[in-house]
């Protein structure tokens, strides 16, 4: 269970880092600095 609790200790940081990463990726896509992402 320790794994389940470890992210929460950093819940503020985890959320902030996740939002920051997503926004940076969105900006890179907007500026066409990333190739088209395929699925």
């Amino acid at each position, binding site marked *: 269970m320790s794994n*389940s*609790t470890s992210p929460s200790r950093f819940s503020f940081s985890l959320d902030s880092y996740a939002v920051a990463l997503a926004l940076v990726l969105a900006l890179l896509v907007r500026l066409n600095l990333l190739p088209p*992402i395929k699925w």
Partner: protein
Amino acid sequence: MAATTTTPFHGVDDVIGLGRRIAALIPGLLLLATVGYAGKFIEQSIGAYTKARHIAFPNIEYVLWAIVLGLIIANTVGIPRIFAAGVATYEFWLKAGIVLLGSRFLLGDVLHLGGISLLLVAVAITLSLTFMHILGRAFKLKPKLTSLLAVGSSICGVSAIIAAKPAIGADDEDASYAIAAILALGAISLFTFPLIGHSLHLSDKAYGLWAGLAVDNTAEATAAGALYSDAAGKVAVLAKTTRNALIGFIVLGYALYWSSCGQAQAVGNKAAFLWGKFPKFVLGFLLISLLATLGFFTKPQLTSLANLSRWAFLLTFAGVGLRTNLRELGKQGWRPFAVGAIGEVFIALLTLALVYGADRYLYL
């Protein structure tokens, strides 16, 4: 990660420490990527094989394969310590994926579906909290364990339990019982919800709303939605995100109750408390949705963002399977599990009835 934001910078040692922490994530990240990609590969291979031979076979989404592969690995050979830190990042990818998914929603849809979700969540939370407390008393659970189970099953699973634990002064044992029960029930819902949805012929929207309102943990709710269809997955994430946004209010309510009983610390600044518990990724989701609505991205760019979100979810779903240790869940005793299970069935039926009503009268 938090240490880097809260401690002063001490030069080279900090850089080396950060480098080591990042390096420690790599094996687990590779495992997440391998398991997730294997799931996608299996889906595509089966699809190509059955199509080439004109065999009628239902498409089983990569989500299920990734979770099942993860479950098999975690519960047979186990996860060696070296992978643990990287595997634990699945929640980070989930949140990044949800923010990016904002690009697939126009803000008007978010407000419409989010508003309906909010209404349904308010009704469901009130009834389910009451029901869980009656159940907890009937099964003679410790009151704080009952509070944790009620918060976990009515709001948002593991994160809600973790947020509530210090606020109500619950002990570690209660928290791990409640987490184990919620995780076990989340795993069961992954396999039962899509079956029930298909047998009731629910629309993508109705099913997605139901999964988002009834499945506790965000990762499992996202997976349960995606297992039904891509569109249902989208709606499930939106409904679940609405639920997550309410976490602070419920935890604040419990904190005030337990401190009034003299069994938890008093809450000082309530606004700061609410902000502290508010899941910040919800703001990121709304921001990306707003940008998409304002035409900030071109159509191919929106496709790229949606695909980035899918890749992030692929890592998440692999993590859901890899972190589920069935033996450990079995050790936690039957009473918290029974209370959780009965409560979950109640919440699932209640939310299903609410979604049926909303589908009919609120035009989903």
